[in-house]
């Protein structure tokens, strides 16, 4: 048991060290791509809290990404850099609030209805962004510079360089991963996993399951808002496409590809999906067809995603599993 924990810690540290070296080995294009992947990985693990741990298949997770991104863009002043210490918490708060409002209504449903309700709300958010001049309509909005970390007039950090922005995003990914890991291992995490496997039983044990499902939904929304903010400033641009159902579908694919219910799996899934997308797009203009094929093959041969493959390769002591 401790051996497994040590191995996990060693792998985690090795991956972090490898990611920290990225700016030294790749060019600017791939650095930007890695920044985008790191932000998408935050989204994927936040969606995994819903999909893999709470049993809530949200087809509208992009809405919170969009709210975080748009809030970040709307709060950015035109002629100077935004202060991250103010704009980031406000963007996360906006995503959290919207997640709460949508969640209050959506958690009354479950299964296929939950999927449809979350999709419907996300599409509503999409059209609000798409059809409202205030939000820039279908053109979206430009952000004119990357944020700074300022206390009063004192600039603590200027995130305008690609390297420092990458490290900032990576830092947020690591913190998000650790936070979500603590959440799923906490008593709260056990309760939502209990709800996933048998909601009625949890109610019979005395847990107000709706409140726990709502809390889980809001937490996931908050992390999605963080990721949205980071993505918006990475691209220095927000557009309604960020909130669309295709985006929500892509996020679900990342989680399924990586293996839901593991947190690290969806993060790897984000990396793999974007990497495969880039690779196939270089090969042919019809890369989307190949991408579809790739996903189908993964689902058929690796039903538990990459995490399932890892578990198959690395099985601890099989001998421990004896029977009654």
């Amino acid at each position, binding site marked *: *048991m401790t051996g497994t924990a040590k191995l996990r810690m060693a792998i985690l540290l090795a991956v972090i060290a490898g990611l920290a070296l990225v700016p030294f080995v790749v060019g600017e294009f791939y650095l930007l791509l890695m920044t985008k992947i790191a932000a998408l990985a935050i989204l994927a693990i936040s969606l995994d809290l819903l999909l893999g741990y709470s049993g809530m298949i949200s087809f509208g997770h992009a809405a919170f990404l969009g709210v975080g991104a748009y809030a970040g863009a709307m709060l950015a002043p035109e002629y100077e850099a935004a202060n991250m210490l103010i704009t980031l918490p406000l963007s996360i708060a906006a995503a959290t609030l919207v997640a709460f409002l949508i969640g209050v209504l959506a958690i009354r449903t479950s299964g296929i209805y939950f999927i449809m309700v979350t999709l419907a709300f996300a599409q509503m958010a999409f059209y609000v962004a798409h059809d409202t001049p205030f939000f820039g309509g279908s053109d979206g909005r430009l952000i004119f510079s990357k944020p700074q970390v300022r206390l009063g007039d004192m600039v603590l950090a200027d995130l305008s360089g690609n390297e420092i922005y990458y490290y900032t995003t990576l830092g947020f990914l690591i913190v998000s991963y650790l936070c979500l890991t603590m959440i799923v291992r906490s*008593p709260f995490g*056990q*309760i939502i*996993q*209990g709800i*996933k*496997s*048998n909601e*009625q*039983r*949890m*109610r*019979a*044990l*005395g*847990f*107000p*399951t709706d409140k726990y499902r709502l809390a889980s939904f809001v937490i996931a929304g908050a992390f999605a808002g963080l990721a949205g903010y980071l993505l918006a400033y990475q691209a220095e641009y927000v557009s309604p496409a960020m909130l669309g159902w295709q985006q929500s579908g892509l996020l679900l694919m990342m989680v399924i590809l990586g293996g839901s*219910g593991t947190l690290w799996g969806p993060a790897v899934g984000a990396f793999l999906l974007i990497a495969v997308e880039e690779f196939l797009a270089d090969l042919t203009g019809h890369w989307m067809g190949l991408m579809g094929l790739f996903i189908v093959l993964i689902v058929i041969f690796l039903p538990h995603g990459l995490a399932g493959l890892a578990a198959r390769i690395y099985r601890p002591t099989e001998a421990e*599993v004896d*029977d*009654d």
Partner: protein
Amino acid sequence: MSTQPIVDIRDLHVHYGSSHILHGINLTIGAGECICLLGRNGMGKTTTVRSLFGLAQPSAGNITIFGDDRTGVASHIIARQGLALVSENRDIFPNLTVMENLVMAARVSKSGSREWSLEKTLSTFPKLTERLDHMGDQLSGGEQQMLAIGRALMTNPELLVLDEATEGLAPMIRDEIWSMVRAIRATGMATLIIDKNISTLLDISDRAIILEKGRIVYEGSAQELAKKTELHARYLGV
């Protein structure tokens, strides 16, 4: 402690769609009492328990728990009044370890007692101690049943309801579970037990109730019923 019953069910009717399942059930469970609910399949035993826990909606009648009307109340609120259910399909959380299955349910009782701590629960079910790190779905049927009962005890209930606690278990495991139920009963916890093991059940219980087509057809001392073998034949098919 007090003379107030834990549960008082009055004239309970339950419908599933157009079928009338329970026809005016009256049932009182006092503190420390052990009651067995008998009857053939489909006579309404589980429905009685389900409506007590708010899992089935009564169409008429009242359910009072510790003097408060709890008819039609959400099941999580009922559970917090000090009622714990071990259902026939056990419902162990397969994605949690044995330890997590137990501690996630832990709660102090309505009166503030923490009598059923993890230590006490594990000492009652020593088999679980060896399995603490195993996932819920890696347990044998008997171990799952012990875990389900242990999990219910961790909520420090005033009334423990066992619905078919020994269904599908080997006779040896069954005996083990019955001796644990006896130990739990000795602590003074009220219990309502549904099972097909009539002789054991009548031996454990104070009072026996027989349901027939949604109506109570016998209510009396378990010892008395043990002697009335003609009733066993008529209502229980044995």
